[in-house]
């Protein structure tokens, strides 16, 4: 039995808590794995370092990826995930504060499936997360594993 998880790559504790609250508010029940920098994210996906013992049946249904991250930044994480056969089909949603055009262009250029700007208004934020969850966890037909 596959354990379909949501992977949240987020270094900001406030954003992490608010995102988790937004999932809860949206009645999303999937387990959320939180990794707090780019290096940890790659360790998680490639099951190495502190994640070497990660269960094999744990698969990411969707990744919420912040761009500005310690150690390895979001775009490099994205590039690494798309370059590896094990991870190249995982749906990745870039979730960031930045509305810079070049960030958008680069993210899509590197194979992001979606790009969402975090709104300041929490009501809007909850709504955004709710829709994301609905789409990627329910509506979207994932690629066969």
């Amino acid at each position, binding site marked *: 039995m596959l354990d379909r998880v949501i992977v949240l790559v987020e270094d900001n504790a406030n*954003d992490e808590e*608010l995102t988790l609250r937004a999932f809860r508010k949206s009645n999303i029940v999937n387990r959320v794995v939180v990794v707090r920098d780019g290096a940890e994210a790659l360790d998680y996906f490639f099951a190495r370092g502190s994640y070497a013992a990660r269960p094999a049946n744990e698969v990411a249904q969707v990744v919420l990826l912040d761009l500005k991250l310690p150690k390895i930044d979001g775009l490099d994480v994205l590039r690494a995930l798309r370059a590896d056969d094990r991870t190249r089909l995982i749906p990745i949603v870039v979730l960031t*504060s*930045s*509305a810079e055009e070049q960030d958008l262009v680069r993210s899509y250029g590197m194979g992001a499936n979606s790009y969402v700007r975090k709104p*300041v208004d929490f009501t809007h934020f909850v709504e955004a997360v709710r829709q994301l969850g609905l789409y990627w966890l329910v509506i979207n037909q994932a690629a066969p594993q």
Partner: protein
Amino acid sequence: MRRIVARGPSQQHTLATLTQHPRIDRAVVYISQWMEDDGTSLVRRLRDGLRLVSTVVQTFAESTSDYRRLLDVIARSVADAIPDTCIVMLRTGDNLTIAAIHDGSGSGDVDRRGLRDRPTAMRDAPISADVLARGPLLIPRIDFDVLRRQMAPSSVAQLEAGGATGMLVVPLAAAGDLHGVLWLLRHGNGRPPLDELDLEIVMDLANHAALAISNARLFQELQRSERLRAAEERAVQTSRLLDAIIENIPDMVFVKEAERLSFVRINRAAEELHGKSRDEMLGKTDYDFFPAGEAEFFVAKDREALASGALVDIPEEPIQTPGGERWLHTKKVALRDSTGKPTHLLGISHDITDRRRELAELSAAKLEADAANRELESFSYSVAHDLRGPLRAIDGFSQALLEDYGARLDPEGLRYLARVREAAQRMAELIDDLLTLSRVTLSDLKRERVDLSALARSLLSGFQRLEPERHVEIVVAPDLVTQADPQLAAIALENLLGNAWKFTSKRTRARIEVGVTESSGAPAFFVRDNGAGFDMTYGDKLFGVFQRLHTESDFPGTGVGLATVARITSRHRGRIWAHGMIDEGATFYFTLTEAHA
């Protein structure tokens, strides 16, 4: 030895008069026949002669400045006086030339064109030569047989053909100068033969004529030397002017002779640049002043200019001077003689050291500015990312507090919480507006065709969709087309129309107009509304960052929008200005091109 043969009552007088003349003491006069004459006729002729002489002398004096004319005047006067044909022969070295002929007989005796101005060697003109050497000759009646022994046969033939019956030849002598001879020919036609009185009158005339010739020649000489002197003066002045020009050219000017390439001329700027006087430099070559490598470069360029015939341009060359290294922009060109052979090399060097340094400073400053811009860009990025994070937390946790603990707060507590959320959201708007402003400043400007009419209609219908309950009369002039950066133009128009939309929100009959007029030759677009307007007294505050003329509660806003529009127009080399009145509405004009002066 010739004899003066005279007969008749006038003999003594004539001889006396003749011998008074210094040149006539050796005069030999042939008189083959003395005409019968009474004293009365003689006196009359003398008087006429004297009158004539004084008139003629006057004429001569007036003709001094025109040598050629003088000779004609002499010939004509003498011919008229006698009256006969008169020929003026002038001596130049060993040649005699007929300089003027006047035919007083009216018989057309001589071929003027054929004779005039043709030099004859002295030895071919024995009579003239004899008169020049020994004095006047009077032949009252020509015996052509005798004459043929003394003159060239062609000349005799000519005289004979012209019907000459007598002749009188006198020297033109004045102040020791023998200018030539004066010939007087008498033609038959029933006239009395020439006599001593004629000789005397002609001698007198000849002396005056000779004097006039001397004067005229002197005058000519004077004129020539005056002309020479004037020409010299002009040459000196021209050369002085050229010197002054060369000396005062602020660029180094140098001339080298083509062979050794040593300096033959330098100007003051060259002296100053090299810190050497021209005495130290002239005659020396580049090798005497510069390091070998540098001198070789200069000389190679000199040779190139001399060989090519074209201007050699050296945009930048370093040169060692006592004041340190300088940089020159030098042009070199060959100077050639009339055959095209290069004789000199002319060089002009403009000192570009300062300009070069300024350029270097400028490009360093540009690098710095670029770096600062990049820093600003990354700063803006951080602002976007990092400042919004805490705001999201403030808003998010306020909301969480409201949701989870709202029941435990009284209305005042709930209101505070609402104020916290409002403030956070407003700060988020401010950050977004500032980011737009910085993007407007930093982005590259790409001009393309922009249809402002279409853009305005699209923006306004967007506003209408957000507030469908509002009724606004919208007038957009068609074909407002310009060359501008599409993204920046859109931001500008969005701000202006957004303002118009916002400030007419309290009008029941709101009206927004977009059109074009003209300002200083450039199209000035405008956005006009009948909204809240503004007080022109504070008009200068309209376009400053964070400057607002309305309270937040009346009309919300960040105070960045118009500053952004102003930045956009100035980046397009255009400008923005506004007219308004409180409660009467406002019109914002903007241009996106440089005004034509």
